[in-house]
């Protein structure tokens, strides 16, 4: 397998900076990491970043297109090379890909970014208290969906090459890599260790099994729990803005000196007017309906459409919620109340 030392990896990023805007992990407080433009120094993130990778493919507020005879157009920027995505993040891109790339209409901006961007993921070497990926059968180390994946071993990384694009980059930068056959077992041991630790940690929480989540949501339409939990919600939208699989957005039209343009702003089903129609009807007028809607969308809609739950177990919604609404607890309590 290919190996790259920490030092050479930094040199690789320096070289990539010519063609890419390189984002690397930055230590931001005692337990959190976030993306930051590559500088000489960066810290390797042991678990997922605080913000989701969604921002690299559809920005929270951005110009999409100028229309009619408008000269306004999207500013072309260099593609991103994003270092430090984790397995859960790569899973979330399957959901985003389905939304923006499947069907009769393809979102060109998203497609362009997905094709041009370089994803350098890495194994988790630790986890946060809110992480529950394994409960959803997502392993804490990437197996697909990356260009390069890094496994931290022996003052460097074992590198898995996951795409033609990555292969080309490797070929152009062979001087930075070396062949190491002796490290595979070390990687294996590290991976086993993190699985074991995470398993033990999750077992103590007695979470609802993955295969029961769909039925649980299907059978809990009338549960009082939605109302009880929603009473705590302050409608800040943090769960939406931090969720890697949330994708809803608004189109927003503007005019500047006679030129028309249309932008995209992230929206979400926890906001009061999300489903409201011009005539005034609002099928999601109650907070309880909106909270329930979030779970139906993630665990029923996507399951029925593409056989996947739109949840990665990253726990960002738990971390972000001011009211301490906890998806793990919601499932446990629903399960208890329905005696499943």
């Amino acid at each position, binding site marked *: 397998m290919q190996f790259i030392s920490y030092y050479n990896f930094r040199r690789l990023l320096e070289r990539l900076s010519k063609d890419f805007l390189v984002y690397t992990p930055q230590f931001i407080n005692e337990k959190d990491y976030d993306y930051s433009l590559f500088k000489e120094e960066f810290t390797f993130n042991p678990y997922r970043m605080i913000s989701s990778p969604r921002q690299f493919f559809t920005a929270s507020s951005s110009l999409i297109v100028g*229309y009619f005879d408008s000269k306004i157009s999207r500013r072309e920027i260099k593609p991103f090379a994003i270092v430090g995505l984790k397995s859960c993040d790569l899973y979330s891109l399957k959901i985003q890909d389905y939304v923006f790339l499947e069907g009769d209409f393809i979102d060109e901006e998203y497609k362009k970014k997905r094709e041009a961007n370089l994803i350098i993921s890495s194994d988790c070497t630790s986890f946060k208290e809110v992480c529950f990926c394994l409960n959803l059968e997502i392993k804490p180390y990437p197996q697909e969906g990356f260009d390069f994946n890094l496994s931290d071993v022996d003052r460097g990384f074992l590198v898995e090459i996951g795409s033609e694009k990555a292969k080309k980059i490797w070929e152009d930068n062979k001087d930075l890599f070396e062949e190491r056959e002796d490290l595979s077992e070390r990687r294996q041991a590290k991976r086993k260790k993190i699985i074991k630790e995470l398993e033990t940690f999750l077992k103590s929480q007695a979470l609802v099994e993955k295969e029961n989540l769909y039925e649980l949501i299907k059978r809990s339409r009338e549960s009082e729990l939605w109302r009880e939990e929603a009473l705590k919600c302050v409608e800040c939208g943090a769960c939406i803005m931090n969720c890697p699989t949330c994708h809803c*957005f*608004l*189109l927003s*039209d503007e005019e500047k000196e006679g030129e*028309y343009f249309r932008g995209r702003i992230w929206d979400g089903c926890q906001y009061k007017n999300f489903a409201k*129609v011009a*005539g005034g009807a609002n099928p999601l007028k109650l907070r309880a309906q909106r909270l329930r809607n979030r779970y139906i969308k993630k665990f029923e809609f996507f399951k*029925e*459409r593409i056989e996947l739950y739109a949840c990665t177990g990253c726990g960002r919604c738990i971390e972000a919620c001011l009211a301490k609404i906890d998806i793990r607890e919601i499932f446990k309590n629903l399960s208890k109340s329905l005696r499943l």
Partner: protein
Amino acid sequence: MNQQSIYAPQKVTVTKIIEETPTIKTLVLRPQADFSFSTGQFVELTYPGKGEAPFTPSSDPAKKGEFEITVMKVGRITALFHQAKVGDTLGLRGPLGRGYPVKDFVGRQILIVGGGVGLAPLRSLIYTLFSRINDFKKIVICYGARTPQDIVYKYQIQEFKKPTKVELRLTVDSPDKSWKGNVGVVTTLLEKLPLNSQEAIGIVCGPPIMMKFTTLKLKELGFGDENIYLSMEKNMSCGLGKCGHCRLGKFYVCKDGPVFKYSQIKDIEDIWD
């Protein structure tokens, strides 16, 4: 400028404005590029620089060069469309979604039930059915408005009963002195229908409350869930199945509808809200 974007509208010119009622106008629009739709599909109409809203064209899909939308003034964007003048340029995306599966209606008896501005999409369907009227056994059109003043297409509605196999029934909730017809909500028109309800098709479009009670009435009359077609009203924003606003169960109304069989959606919570 990127005309390839699925979010970019093309230009349409307003060529005529018809005042239907105090709150409803029909805009006749001429797209600058090729445009055609099948009955029941919808479009997103842009007021430049301000925003867009979904409408199902009310004109005959076979008519080339121009199409019509009928707009009730209910919110910010529809109010802007009401201010539009002949010659103005608006934006158009579409056609979007799936319309009426007219080929499935061949050989059947058809009941059309409209409420208020809900007659707009149905008028386009009526044109389509009339253009091949020999394909259908019988057509009954029932339409209800709040007052005689609120009836849309007053200038042509009587023409709908011209073909011999068509029956037209009208009602208003509150009559004025000149009204000599039926008084009551639209479901009061659904008695003694000259149709075999076990086999007939029922097509309903109107405000949610009207669709709810019409559907219940049709079921009571013996219409099958498979034979009731509803135009669902949801907040269709992008119209492409991406923005997430119009989810209805496992469907997006914009992409999988807006026309659904009742059997497809009857088990979904809160469908009439």
